[in-house]
């Protein structure tokens, strides 16, 4: 016999409670999936807690900044009263981050450092643009304010999104996330974003997505001895056939990879995916760790994506992307801030990369944008001292932010304590595309390097010594396709056949000597004036 009493009142009560529970749990669960994918509960609570906490802090901080900004006038590097200074951008930087950690002991970027960097940018007047705006600007169909930048994040990890979004919201910034479809679509990762989260991400209006490749983001063996390399820029080892792939197979493979990545993202998220970030930031130029990189990736990528991004190596080329650089109209570089940079450091680097207006005079400070390719440089005692390393033969520096200069005169008052030769670089695009006036005691040459091939196109000899002792003035003048080199006002050599590819470019200084460790030059004054 049983002692149960199924009264209507009690049944109604129980059923209502059960219904309410069901509805609440269903709602919470689907929300949880949309917002956090398949992350474990501990992570979710940690994010909710820290984001709630930080959001309030951010709001306070942002308010302080806007109060300060009203009072503060940030001094631009481009102190010029020339009418060229329109306040519109001529070149744009792109920043790339990976993940933002919270309170871990590793050397990866921590939340407070990231906050510091973005708040500093905002305070200095830097605003983000969307990917579409970036693309329009590069096509020449849009103007943007001077201090605009594109903010990107690679790999589509949860840590590149959850700790970041509240900050973007408060700062009114937008970001682009380069997703790995293999890890994010149809998976239940605790590390990578799930497709639910990406849906929510796209709905927020703060984020756009790009492609980061399908299988090319994983190292694969390139020979039978288990050497692993990035498969986008290396021929891989075909295990079944016991050989490396041919160039045709390679091109076919990466074509399929980049195409399938784009299609997977476009199908799942119903957006246009027109940008691609090269895995590991490499598109196939030889690096110290990868001498055998092959240059096929750019060719394939440009057929599939409108824009592709690689990581700037902090030397050899300008840090910003110039609007009018047709030579690489779809390949763009990104600056990867150090996890250890303070906000001020990041701002300073961007300020020094900003397109500079003419006239320009140096030396002022050593953080105004002189980038060093090789050799040793110092800005002590208000002079620029450039010399060879102890076991090197020379050094080169160039001025970031000068990539759009067209017709100008470079004047340098200098001396060489070791009586070695030096060059004034002009129409510098990168270290494989530039022109120079090469001054030596016994000769003066006009040289140009196109795609890495260096040639002397004009020169004088047997009339020296061309370079006097002590301090003197050297000049390089570029006008259209004419380049001339002068010392102390006397033009020594001129050429009218500067390669048309070098129609715009910036300035730099080089010193070189065949003797080891000897080359050196001290520049007391360096000015560039418009012609």
């Amino acid at each position: 016999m049983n002692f149960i009493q199924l009264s209507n009142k009690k049944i109604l009560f129980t059923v209502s409670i059960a219904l309410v529970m069901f509805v609440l749990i269903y709602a919470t669960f689907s929300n949880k999936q949309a917002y956090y994918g398949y992350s474990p509960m501990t992570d979710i609570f940690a994010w909710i807690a820290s984001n709630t906490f930080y959001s309030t802090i951010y709001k306070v901080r942002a308010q302080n900044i806007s109060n300060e900004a009203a009072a503060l006038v940030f001094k631009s590097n481009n102190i010029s009263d020339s009418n060229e200074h329109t306040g519109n951008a001529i070149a744009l930087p792109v920043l790339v981050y990976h993940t933002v950690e919270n309170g871990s002991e590793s050397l990866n970027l921590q939340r407070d450092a990231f906050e510091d960097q973005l708040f500093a940018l905002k305070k200095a007047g830097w605003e983000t643009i969307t990917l579409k705006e970036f693309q329009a600007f590069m096509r020449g169909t849009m103007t943007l304010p001077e201090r605009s930048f594109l903010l990107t994040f690679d790999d589509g990890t949860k840590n590149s999104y959850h700790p970041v979004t509240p900050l973007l919201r408060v700062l009114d910034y937008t970001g682009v996330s380069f997703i790995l479809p293999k890890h994010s679509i149809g998976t239940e990762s605790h590390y990578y974003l799930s497709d639910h989260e990406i849906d929510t991400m796209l709905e927020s209006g703060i984020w756009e997505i790009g492609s980061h490749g399908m299988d090319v983001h994983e190292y694969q063996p390139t020979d039978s001895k288990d050497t692993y390399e990035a498969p986008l820029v290396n021929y891989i080892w075909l295990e079944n056939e016991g050989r490396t792939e041919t160039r045709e197979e390679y091109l076919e493979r990466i074509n399929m990879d980049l195409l399938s990545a784009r299609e997977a993202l476009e199908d799942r998220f119903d957006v246009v995916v027109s940008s691609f970030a090269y895995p590991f930031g490499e598109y196939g130029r030889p690096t110290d760790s990868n001498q055998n990189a092959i240059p096929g990736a750019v060719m394939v990528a440009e057929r599939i994506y409108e824009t592709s991004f690689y990581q700037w190596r902090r030397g050899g080329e300008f840090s910003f992307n110039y609007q009018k650089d047709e030579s690489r109209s779809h390949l763009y570089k990104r600056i990867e801030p150090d996890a250890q940079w303070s906000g001020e450091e990041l701002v300073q680097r961007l300020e020094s990369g900003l397109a500079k207006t003419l006239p320009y005079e140096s030396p002022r400070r050593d953080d105004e944008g002189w980038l060093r390719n090789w050799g040793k440089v110092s800005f002590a005692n208000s002079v620029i001292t450039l010399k060879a390393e102890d076991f090197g033969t020379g050094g080169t520096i160039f001025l970031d932010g000068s990539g759009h200069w067209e017709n100008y005169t470079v004047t340098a008052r200098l001396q060489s304590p070791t009586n070695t030769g030096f060059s004034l670089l002009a129409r510098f695009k990168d270290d494989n595309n530039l022109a120079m006036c090469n001054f030596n005691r016994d000769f003066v040459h006009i040289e140009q390097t196109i795609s890495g091939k260096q040639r002397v196109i004009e020169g004088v000899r047997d009339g020296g010594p061309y370079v006097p002792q002590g301090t003197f003035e050297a000049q390089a003048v570029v006008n259209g396709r004419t380049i001339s080199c002068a010392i102390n006002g006397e033009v020594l050599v001129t050429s009218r056949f500067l390669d048309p590819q070098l129609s715009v470019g910036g300035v730099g200084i080089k010193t070189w000597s065949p003797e080891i460790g000897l080359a050196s030059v001290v520049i007391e004054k360096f000015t560039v004036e418009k012609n």
Partner: protein
Amino acid sequence: MNKLWNGDVITTIKEPKHKKNKANINDIKTGGIWLAFFIIIYFILFIKVLTFETVFNNAFFGFYSILITVYILSRFLLAYFHKETPYDPSYEPTVTFVVPAKNEEDNIAETIRRFGNVNYPLDKIEVVAINDGSTDGTYTEMVKVANELRSKIKTVKVINWKVNKGKRHGMAEGVKQASHDIIIFIDSDSFIEPNCVRHLVKYFASDSVGAVSGHTDVYNRETNLLTQMQALRYYIAFKIYKSAESVFGSVTCCPGCCSAYRRKYLVEIVDEWLVQRFLGAECTFGDDRSLTNYIIRNYDAVYSHEALAYTVVPDNFKVYVRQQFRWKKSWIRETLIASVFMWRRHPLAAASYYLYIFLALTSPIVFFRAIAWYPAVHQVWPVIYLFGLFLMLLLHGLYYRAKVGPRAWALAVFSFWFNSVILIWQLPWAAINIRDSRWGTR
């Protein structure tokens, strides 16, 4: 004595109805407590939904976690649907109180005295008190109070054993000496409320009922945190767990502190019960549980939540631990025995019973894994497990607080959690020591 339990007055029968005309601040608080109660259930369920995803990762532990939630929530649900049985004033069977006692000189007088203060025709009551080899003044006290009582109750027998024979023998002697229809066993340190008898006997109106358990609360609740925690445990154990068992007439333990049995059914099995042996050793503890087990083979055992009594619980941690240890040993023995015939009872009762055994046996394993193994291997603190355990216990604590009113319950919940964590090791240890028949506290 707390005012709340004073609803029983000798002359009136029903408890006074609560006045609805003014909104009591306590009502609002109670409403808030119930809201918190259901919010905790929501959190528990939500965590289970999440855990369900990982069931496929680790079937055993995921399954365990879901089963234990189902078990506990089903206890609340069943208790909610327990039938209210009003007592029938025309049904008044004769009743014998049986009180075995050993070394209980402080409490025995009050215990026995209360038999004369019950709300029941005194001419239908008799008392059998057994002094089981006490070395203190228990016998003297018994004789004194028996003399007092004889002015109200006709038959008050005091049996004096010079040598201790054990509680079981005491109870059996009581059964033999009794002549009335219903036997009510009361512990020598338990105090009944006046309406206790009425509410115990009312169930015997139907023939299928063989035993009825009363509701026992902790008398010395206010002494210290340990007693407060036990008060919470007792309350929950009766109101929720025993009530859930009672829905199908399958209460597995009618406790010796306050329970009633039909003498006709008892005499069928009392001899067998007396000489019960287990694994070659004589059974000297868990007498009440064992007796209930004999009854529920063929009859129903029910819980009567209005039959109120109080009992004294250990206020010393060592004594408490020994008591718990003893109880675990009897639990192991009787659970094994009952599982042989429990399947014959109502399917839901049987299912709950076997599920409970499964959970009780696997809990130490799950506990060990969560607290020791997993953290050692994965360097992760057992936050979710301990939090989940805490939520469950908080649920019990909130129920207690909602039903019983404001008193120091929060600390009790913590203590409950703490003690559960500490005492979970006792079960395996009890299994190893089951043949040790010493009581340890007596």
